């Protein structure tokens, strides 16, 4: 296959066309922060953490949804990008109620790890403190909207991998919520197969099994892509 030349962070690369900037960066060990990206499901550019600078384009573009083109000059670690990564992370924390001390995901949370990576020590914006529901109606699992960052990894994995489409999204802005079916309790869902893939896809402590306590959550988001790959195999 023909390759095309691009430059990322002053590094000259020959890459396959058709790939996204994120894929190329991951292959070449160039760090890009992500939250809504999950290998195995479609990228939607929701979290805005993977924004990169491309020479000749004024806007910052999301690396996960932008394909490489010949002679692109890309920068991933400028001060401008670092500034926005920090702001985005702070807004995740300010928008819902992320109380790490009492969260099941404490210590195993992608949002915490992200905070450490961007050097977040405090939040410069006022917290919204929204009154969020904790849906415990499902016999085995809990959906805690306090911890949700609207990455919609659960929505995509349920739709694309399991094929059930139990999860979807309602409202806009800060009132946006992940919903089960047509906004009914999860336990009453007619589409949910209780497969548990959304648990593993969730980067925070928003979806978790009832059988665990604070800080004991074990997640395996890599399992989603393994499933997708295995299903492609012809036996």
């Amino acid at each position: 296959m023909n390759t095309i030349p691009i430059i990322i962070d002053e590094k000259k690369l020959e890459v396959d066309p058709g790939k996204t900037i994120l894929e190329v960066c991951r292959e070449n060990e160039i760090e890009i922060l992500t939250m809504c990206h999950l290998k195995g499901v479609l990228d939607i550019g929701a979290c805005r953490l993977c924004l990169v600078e491309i020479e000749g384009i004024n806007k910052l573009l999301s690396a996960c949804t932008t394909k490489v083109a010949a002679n692109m000059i890309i920068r991933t670690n400028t001060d401008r990008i670092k500034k926005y990564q920090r702001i985005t992370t702070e807004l995740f924390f300010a928008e819902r109620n992320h109380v790490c001390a009492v969260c099941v995901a404490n210590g195993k949370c992608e949002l915490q790890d992200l905070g450490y990576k961007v050097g977040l020590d405090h939040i410069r914006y006022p917290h919204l403190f929204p009154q969020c529901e904790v849906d415990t109606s499902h016999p085995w699992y809990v959906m805690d909207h306090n911890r949700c960052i609207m990455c919609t990894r659960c929505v995509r994995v349920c739709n694309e991998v399991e094929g059930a489409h139990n999860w979807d999204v309602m409202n806009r802005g800060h009132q946006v919520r992940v919903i089960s079916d047509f906004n009914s309790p999860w336990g009453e869902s007619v589409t949910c197969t209780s497969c548990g893939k959304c648990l593993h896809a969730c980067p925070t402590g928003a979806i978790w099994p009832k059988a665990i306590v604070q800080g004991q959550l074990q997640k395996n988001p890599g399992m989603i892509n393994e499933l997708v790959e295995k299903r492609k195999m012809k036996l």
Partner: protein
Amino acid sequence: MSKKKLATVWLGGCSGCHMSLLDIDERILDVAKLADIVKSPIVDGKEMPEVDIALVEGSITSDEHYREILHIRKKAKTLIAFGDCAVMTNVTGMRNYFPLKEVFDAAYVNAVSNDAEGQVPGHPSLLKLNDKVVPLQEVVNVDFVIPGCPPNADTIFYVLFEFLNDRLPDLGKAKKLKYG
């Protein structure tokens, strides 16, 4: 170099951060060489004097805390928000999702352990809770923050030791950031 003055204050928190401070164990002797602890829940002292460093645990939950933090800001050269509650309200802030009346009723009127005459205490000598719990930074300028619930003893010692030696700590670079 003259000895510095150090204060630690306990506002709307659980004192877990102070427990973690005690966990610096024998390193408190290194701190004592460089500073006198002039006010703290663990030393005898009433009014807060002028200090070089004040570690303030907990968030602002009442009129009393509000007055206190303004006083601390006047007296302290360096004010450090100490622990998740001081930095981002944490567990203390969980009552912010509900109207204050509901919170009071949940504790004093509707709690299962209450008898039929349960009522909200309203004695004038009691502090008055604010509608919303806020972190220190929403009331005063904060010079440094140590997140964590509680922060590790190592982190606390690192920050104290750097400040006592007139250096500015960097939690990100020192890989000592922690929430929860």
